């Protein structure tokens, strides 16, 4: 499924390259760092994909603090880079300031909304994506107990957890879901050891499918689950290949597409500002199924996922978004 | 015998040694020759340059000029390893032992002989046995250092030096930490070593030790070697005069006491130390205005704890302290200072002074809330420095620089800083602990005179000292402490033997 999508995109891209103007794209990562095998790495993959197709090189930067993020965005803009993509909600206020300073530069922010005429805000309906993987987790669980390990305890991550719980309980109303957060500081995104301990703890309590929404810490979840012959669920990037046969699926946020599309649209002079909300309907959030996990997904599970997707698109199933009211009904 | 030994060929010769530290000329053109198989004393006041000279010999410092010859051959001593190789062993005033190692391990340390220990241990044990037998240095090789008495620890230091093949042994103020009995034992060991052909250099400021044990003696003063004498041909008075550079009174002259009312009173006082051991056991006594009460005793019999309890530093378990007939409510040094009780503590390095402070900062320690040093929260540094300068002048503290770091003053001058501070406040009562420990003769005389002056001015003085001479020459009444109890009281003219027996807990 993903492959066809990619090839479609490739064809589309090739057809537009001839028309495309030369652009100077830039990319600012979140503070988790470029190689987190997750969110930031997905963004990098999008930029790489564009580079491979068009030969247009891009510049990127890994800030270590909030102040540095703002500086980096401004540095790119002031040196004529256009468009400038910043991934992570942490750059919201920075983007508000800098985008106002450079009205002729096109900006993209991922995971947050900045209401300015030259900013495209790309957000994802992680609740829906998490609902799908929660559904799969619920069906794959033999114990009737599943786990969730979040990174830093912030609303965004609670949103992942809330969607996941709804999905799991849609299988069986008395499904038990253990939820833990790695920590309360930024270090929580990068602490696979602690994430692994939490996972072990959940496994000891009976959980046999654990969903990691914890940036680079998630690797600890996937590792521990594989070591204990349990199932795990990856996040942001497709992590099915990390431990084939142990990673049940991945809740993929197509951040790569957000980056890729931003560059392509700008090159083709088709850049649009405003909010781009990506849910299941737009294939912006996906429960990844590929050769690595095919064996784990039964035909019934596949059918259930397809049905859930259709129901969500049709509106017959509504997944509650934690962030609309800062609470989870489950 | 002394004549013969110094007539032997020299074991060590120093020719024209010169050393400067910035503006300070620590050693000026020092010439010295010590005969093989003799005990040579080097005496001088603190800061005379003795320690610098020995540090040059042991490779801690390098002489700016001059030559060192061992057994007639010139040597260069770059570091302590070179000194050991040249056959020089050093026993420092503060021991350089690993406290939680055994005797054997300490002796071997740095001379293990190869990567594997087992072989070296066996060899060292054998060698240690031989050294013990030859020199009468009995120590259990398997005893842990921190559990040994100080005297035995010192023996380990000597063994360490001998184990490394030392022919020349330097001892720096070796009796400073020893009881009289331990000191006697040390001297016997040194004599055996000498008779076996070792050469010993003894650095001290105690004239009695020089007279008792050395064959020859050199006197240092202000960086110069002012005289070398055969011990048998000199006198204590001559050495003292050479050291100080003028005539000194070795005996304090004082008139009769004129005791007034009781100012300080102790009733059934019991004090425990940090480990819960009773150190002061149901002690009672009075100190009157215009008298000096001396507390004699071997170190560790409760005098220190008694003094600390009186000064408010240590909380008594039971009993009462009365000042002017009124009981002292709480153990608080600040409160006691307000009641006009001054305290010259036993340990000036850790209590009486903050060594890293400049001199003027120490001149107000404990009195820094006095309004004349600044109103409210602020400290008036001009006022503090001015009063420090006055004290420096009045008490002849040298060098006369209130901005100098206290650690850079000699022991005697450091003690003068403490004495000046405590006496200048014109207290009614004065607690004094070991007033002349590590203090040179000139300063001793000065401090003793001040103490007598305090008495004559009608102050109540309580003196604690392990130097029996000091107690006898200053006190009007003497209390003897043994195992935490006051075992008896004697008048000032009690003879040394009687007091000595009481201090040993034998007679009352």
């Amino acid at each position, binding site marked *: 499924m993903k492959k066809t999508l990619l090839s479609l995109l490739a064809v589309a891209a090739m057809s537009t390259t001839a028309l495309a103007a030369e652009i100077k794209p830039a990319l600012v990562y979140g503070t988790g760092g470029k190689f987190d095998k997750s969110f930031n790495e997905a963004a990098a993959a999008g930029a790489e994909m564009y580079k491979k197709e068009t030969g247009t090189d891009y510049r990127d930067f890994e800030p270590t603090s909030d102040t540095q993020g703002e500086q980096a965005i401004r540095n790119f803009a002031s040196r004529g880079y256009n468009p400038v993509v910043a991934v992570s909600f942490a750059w919201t206020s920075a983007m508000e300031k800098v985008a106002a300073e450079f009205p002729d530069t096109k900006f993209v922010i991922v995971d947050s909304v900045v209401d300015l005429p030259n900013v495209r805000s790309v957000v994802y309906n992680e609740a829906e994506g998490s609902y799908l993987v929660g559904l799969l987790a619920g069906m794959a669980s033999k114990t009737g107990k599943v786990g969730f390990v979040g990174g830093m305890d912030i609303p965004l991550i609670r949103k992942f957890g809330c969607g996941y719980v709804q999905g799991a309980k849609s299988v069986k109303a008395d499904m038990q879901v253990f939820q833990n957060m790695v920590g309360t500081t930024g270090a929580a995104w990068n602490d696979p050891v602690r994430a692994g301990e939490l996972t072990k703890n959940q496994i000891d309590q009976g959980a046999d499918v654990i969903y990691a929404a914890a940036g680079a810490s998630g690797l600890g979840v996937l590792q521990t689950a594989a070591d204990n012959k349990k199932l795990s669920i990856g996040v942001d990037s497709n992590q099915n290949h990390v431990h084939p046969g142990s990673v049940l699926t991945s809740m993929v946020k197509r951040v790569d597409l957000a980056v890729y599309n931003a560059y392509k649209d700008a090159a083709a002079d088709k850049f649009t500002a405003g909010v781009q909300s990506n849910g299941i309907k737009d294939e912006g959030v996906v429960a990844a199924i590929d050769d690595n996990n095919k064996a784990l997904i039964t035909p019934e599970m596949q059918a259930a996922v397809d049905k859930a997707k259709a129901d969500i698109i049709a509106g017959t199933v509504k997944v509650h978004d934690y962030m609309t009211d800062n609470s989870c009904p489950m | 015998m002394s004549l013969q030994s110094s007539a032997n060929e020299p074991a060590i010769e120093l020719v024209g040694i010169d050393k400067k530290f910035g503006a300070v000329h620590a050693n000026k053109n020092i010439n010295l020759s010590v005969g093989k198989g003799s005990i040579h004393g080097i005496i001088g006041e603190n800061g005379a340059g003795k320690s610098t000279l020995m540090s040059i010999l042991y490779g801690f410092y390098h002489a700016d000029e001059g030559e060192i010859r061992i057994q007639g051959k010139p040597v260069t001593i770059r570091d302590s390893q070179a000194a050991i190789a040249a056959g020089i062993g050093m026993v420092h005033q503060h021991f350089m032992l690993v406290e939680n190692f055994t005797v054997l391990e300490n002796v071997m340390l740095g001379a293990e002989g190869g990567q594997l220990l087992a072989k070296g241990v066996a060899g060292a044990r054998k060698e240690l046995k031989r050294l013990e037998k030859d020199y009468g240095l009995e120590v259990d090789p398997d005893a842990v250092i921190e559990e040994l008495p100080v005297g035995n620890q010192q023996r380990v230091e000597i063994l360490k030096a001998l184990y490394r093949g030392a022919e020349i042994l330097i001892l720096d103020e070796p009796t400073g930490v020893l009881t009289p009995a331990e000191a006697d034992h040390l001297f016997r060991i040194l004599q055996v070593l000498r008779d076996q052909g070792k050469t010993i250099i003894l650095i001290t400021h105690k004239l009695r030790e020089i007279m008792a044990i050395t064959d020859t003696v050199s006197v240092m003063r202000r960086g110069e070697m002012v005289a070398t004498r055969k011990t048998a041909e000199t006198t204590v008075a001559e050495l003292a005069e050479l050291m100080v550079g003028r005539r000194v009174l070795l005996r304090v002259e004082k008139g009769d006491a004129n005791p007034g009312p009781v100012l300080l009173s102790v009733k059934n006082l019991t004090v425990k130390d940090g480990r819960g051991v009773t150190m002061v056991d149901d002690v009672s006594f009075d100190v009157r205005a215009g008298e000096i009460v001396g507390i004699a005793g071997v170190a560790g019999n409760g005098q220190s704890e008694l003094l600390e309890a009186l000064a408010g530093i240590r909380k008594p378990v039971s009993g009462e302290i009365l000042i002017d007939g009124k009981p002292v409510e709480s153990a608080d040094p600040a409160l006691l200072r307000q009641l006009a009780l001054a305290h010259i503590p036993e340990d000036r390095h850790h209590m009486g002074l903050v060594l890293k402070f400049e001199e003027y900062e120490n001149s107000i320690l404990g009195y820094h809330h006095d309004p004349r040093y600044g109103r409210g929260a*602020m400290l008036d540094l001009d006022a503090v420095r001015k009063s420090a300068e006055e004290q420096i002048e009045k008490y002849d503290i040298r060098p006369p620089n209130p901005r100098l770091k206290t650690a850079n003053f000699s022991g005697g001058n450091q003690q003068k800083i403490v004495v000046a501070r405590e006496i200048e406040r014109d207290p009614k009562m004065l607690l004094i602990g070991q007033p002349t420990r590590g203090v040179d003769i000139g300063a001793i005389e000065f401090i003793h005179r001040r103490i007598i002056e305090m008495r004559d001015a009608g102050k109540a003085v309580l003196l604690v000292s392990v130097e029996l001479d000091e107690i006898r020459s200053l006190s009007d009444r003497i209390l003897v402490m043994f195992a935490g109890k006051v075992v008896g009281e004697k008048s000032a003219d009690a003879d040394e033997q009687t007091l000595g027996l009481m201090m040993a807990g034998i007679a009352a």
Partner: protein
Amino acid sequence: MSTASVPLPAWINYGVIPLLNLILAFFFSGLVVWAIGENPFEALNFLIQGALGRGDAIGFTLFYATSFIFTGLSVAVAFHAGLFNIGSEGQAYVGGLGAALVALSLDHYVPWYVTMPFAIAGAALFGAAWAFIPAWLQAKRGSHIVITTIMFNFIGAALMVYLLVNVFIVPGKMAPETRTFLPGGQLPKLDWLMALFGLKLGPAPFNVSFIIALVMCYLVWLLIWRTKLGYEMRTLGISPTAAVYAGIPYVRTVIIAMLISGGLAGMMSLNAVMGASARLQVEFVAGAGFVGIAVSLMGRSHPVGIILAAILFGILYQGGADLSFEMPNITRDMIVVIQGLVIFFAGALEYMLRPAMVRLYQTARGK
């Protein structure tokens, strides 16, 4: 042993030796840069230009330095009383709560200069409060302050995240942070100060907190060397036994020293919260508390030294970010390595060069 006690003149101790240490640190950093295939001189140029080359670069450098001055002073004050306060990070974090509460409640009604004194008091009060429990535990119970302050950093982080996620967050917003303060709750930038030197501050968040920091430097100097309390703190710090002898109350002195230390750490939040982002954010301290330890160490716990060391670290932070921006090969981890080398040479290896300097000095004097 032989050379440690030899006095060297101040210009060698405080001038030549730190400078040589710094040169050594840059030399080894240069080797590392060279090893990954970049030109070290170019890198140095980027670093210096990035930190000092333009008005806004200087602005950013001084902005970072301001935070480090506050935390450096915090560590230094505790250190003078013999206490190793590792908790400046957490105290600054909680201090931000105090500053934010003042800003949030006053910004509608009064201009910034009315808010400021209350915000200073609020930040200091909350920072001090966060230092109080470890101080009390140390003074009364003997719990080691290093351990307790480290633990309080974590507790502080958890508390702040809880408050930001559940209490202060603006509904519907993604980021856990308070609403943006109005100008009445912000500390204005120091454009005019930069203009005096003909520089343009641009977007750099260099703000009034810098002046507050300098005032605090003076007050700390006054406290440590000109007050009775400072005298008591130093006595306790150097010689606890002498402090007992002098009747200096241990419990009181420890607690007061820690309260002042915590208060100074708390004031760091003025710079980050009210000066730069105009809102209270998660993780706004960003390690400044720990940098403060290095700053205090390098600055020998003296306000003047702390200012210099804080500016040096400001240069490393700002110039380092610019360097890794200009030379993508030099990643952010490389910048951390370079910062580490500076701490290593200038802080930890302070005495490495001393013996050689003593010998050199004596030879020069002697001949």
